[in-house]
């Protein structure tokens, strides 16, 4: 049996619904239709009354979720595309994230954001918004890169008392496969060494982990051993694992599919520079999407986002510095 990233997300939701009567799923077309990407396929049938179709109003969806959370529920919200979550921005960053800090009442909601680029998706169905949400205190932002993490981190998200922005990458939905679902997992907030190396550290997350691993394969044929750190969780950010890796390699390349300005890659570099300047044998570098809206055309899109090839080129330059 093999299971995809998307199926793992469905299974995690089924598991959460089974385990905890307080859990319910709310979102546009999540019911009979099974969700825009079929992440809630058949769940309404299996869990009658607990997988509920929402009106086309992201603002109202999160508002309802926060309200039920106050009443002790643990809703899982599906945004059809991360891009549309900006319509619910006020409810997320003003209400959900501050609730506990204002009232001592926890806000255990999980907002699933299908995010990131796929070929031909264009500016409204490709965006990476993790940095924006990570900016707000009170939110937890998760970016699983593997089938196993998609499953275990979604379960952990539902179990958390804090509001969680769960960034699931659409590019990984169908072709990323695992043999079976995991029975144990790293805790939330802990990064993972996806590949060990000694010449350069690439810190990345989500779909870019796979581009970085492919780049590392390419560089290995040239004799370079590249270490790849999968952050897993953007907030909290596991600075210790990153610094420990830079201590081994002396060189840092941060790769993110999001835009560069004030992003996760900038945050990682800022932390490493400030906390462990003396470990750096070369100026830390970052590689991000181009600072333009995400283009539709597949060729433009391929040039817009970091790829194994551009990651390898940036890594080569940094290794030879």
């Amino acid at each position: 049996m093999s299971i995809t990233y998307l199926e793992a997300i469905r299974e995690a939701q089924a598991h959460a619904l089974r385990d905890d009567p307080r859990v319910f799923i709310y979102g546009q077309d999540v019911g009979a239709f099974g969700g825009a990407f079929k992440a809630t396929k058949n769940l309404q049938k299996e869990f009658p009354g607990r997988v509920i179709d929402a009106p086309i109003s992201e603002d109202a969806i999160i508002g309802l979720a926060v309200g039920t959370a106050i009443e002790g529920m643990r809703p899982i919200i599906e945004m059809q595309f991360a891009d549309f979550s900006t319509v619910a921005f006020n409810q997320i960053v003003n209400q959900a994230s501050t609730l506990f800090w204002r009232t001592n009442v926890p806000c255990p909601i999980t907002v699933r954001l299908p995010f990131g680029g796929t070929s031909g998706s264009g500016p409204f169905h490709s965006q990476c918004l993790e940095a924006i949400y990570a900016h707000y205190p009170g939110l937890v932002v998760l970016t699983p890169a593997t089938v196993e993490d998609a499953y275990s981190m979604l379960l952990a998200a539902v179990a958390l008392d804090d509001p969680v922005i769960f960034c699931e990458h659409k590019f990984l939905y169908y072709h990323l496969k695992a043999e079976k679902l995991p029975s144990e997992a790293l805790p939330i907030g802990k990064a993972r060494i996806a590949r060990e190396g000694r010449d350069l550290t690439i810190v990345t997350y989500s779909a870019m982990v796979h581009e970085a691993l492919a780049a590392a394969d390419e560089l290995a044929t040239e004799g370079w051993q590249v270490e790849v750190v999968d952050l897993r969780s953007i907030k909290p950010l596991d600075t210790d694992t990153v610094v420990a890796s830079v201590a081994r390699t002396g060189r840092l390349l941060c790769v993110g599919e999001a835009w560069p300005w004030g992003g996760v890659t900038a945050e990682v570099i800022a932390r490493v520079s400030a906390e462990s300047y003396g470990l750096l044998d070369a100026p830390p570098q970052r590689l991000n999407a181009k600072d333009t809206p995400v283009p539709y055309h597949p060729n433009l899109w391929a040039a817009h986002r970091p790829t194994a090839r551009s990651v390898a080129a940036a890594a080569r330059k940094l290794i030879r510095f």
Partner: protein
Amino acid sequence: MPQISIIMPQLGESIAEAAIINFLVKPGDQVEGGQDLIEVETNKATMTVTAPCGGRIESFSAQLNESYAVGDVLGKIEATKEEAARFGLDVPAPTKSCDPETVTNQPRNGTGSRVEPTIRGLPVPANASGASYMSPRLKARMHELGLSAADLAGIAGSGAAGRVTVEDFEKFMANLETQKLTKASSMRVAVADAMRRSWTRPIATVGLPVQIDAVLAHRKTCDPKPGPALYALRALAVALAENSAVAGRLVGCNIVHPSAIDVGFAVEAEDGVLVPVLRGADKKPLKELVLRYNELVELARQRKLPADATGGSVATVTNFGTFGLIWATPIPLPEQTIVLGLGAGRKMPHWDEAKGQFVPVMEAYLTLSFDHRVLDGGAAGRLLLRISDLMRHPEKL
């Protein structure tokens, strides 16, 4: 419309001027920014001066076949305000020949103020790298091991532009372990540190032969006999008392004058050099200095110098002649500007005008190494001449 100066650009390292050999456009012509305007010839190659911005050539002030220094105004371009601003030329570039006309280009009124960058239009290297670049990690690692940049001189770097990477460094250190290592004495380390700090300055050396027959004759009449170096030391002290500025230190834009003429002298001791100091060497005659001098030499050799007999001197005398050396280029102590050296005495033929023949004289070289930021060859030479004059009349010292 603002008039923008066409300026002789920096055409390359160590090029100070260039001659006009051809005008490629004429006054009245419309030109694009970056367009070649004037062919110039430097001592290295023929190059072109390009338009600082687009516009109409207003005039050329430069003449054919004449040389102009870098920064000189060669002509004017009349440009629209927008064009000038686009090229960052709406403020006058600091030019050597301050052209009052360019100042009138400035519409500097109080209203509508906007932030102006301090530096515009200058090529500033954004990523300084190269052989001398040391990464934070390399610096931290060297600091941890107590190493300095000079210790790395033997490593050929494999990084960008030949810089030493941490990997190069670790390989170098690992390789060292395969070789025989002996511990450098603390004296050796101290000397190394002083020399390294001193070498951060441009140091030059001049020399002058001085006849020492008079000195040698005079010392035989004394008891105890002063060493030849003491004569040089006393002569230096007298010369510095006349003009202490030559021993001053340059700190920022100030020459810091010595507060007393305390002169040190180098004494070889074990694995290094000690520099005991004769305080107020300008105040006492030679024969009153001898006992203290001999005492300090002995204490230095036993490495028992009292604290008040070291440090704080304005200059040093080193008698490298004791090693049989005729000439040397000693390095002044880091906190000093000059070091006076004395070479070994030799019998040399000297033309005696009165006798009309060569006569044998004892001659030794005096050398003066100096911080070239403070002194030039002329001042250093004059100081040496004065010392040599004083040494010809040792009885007056």
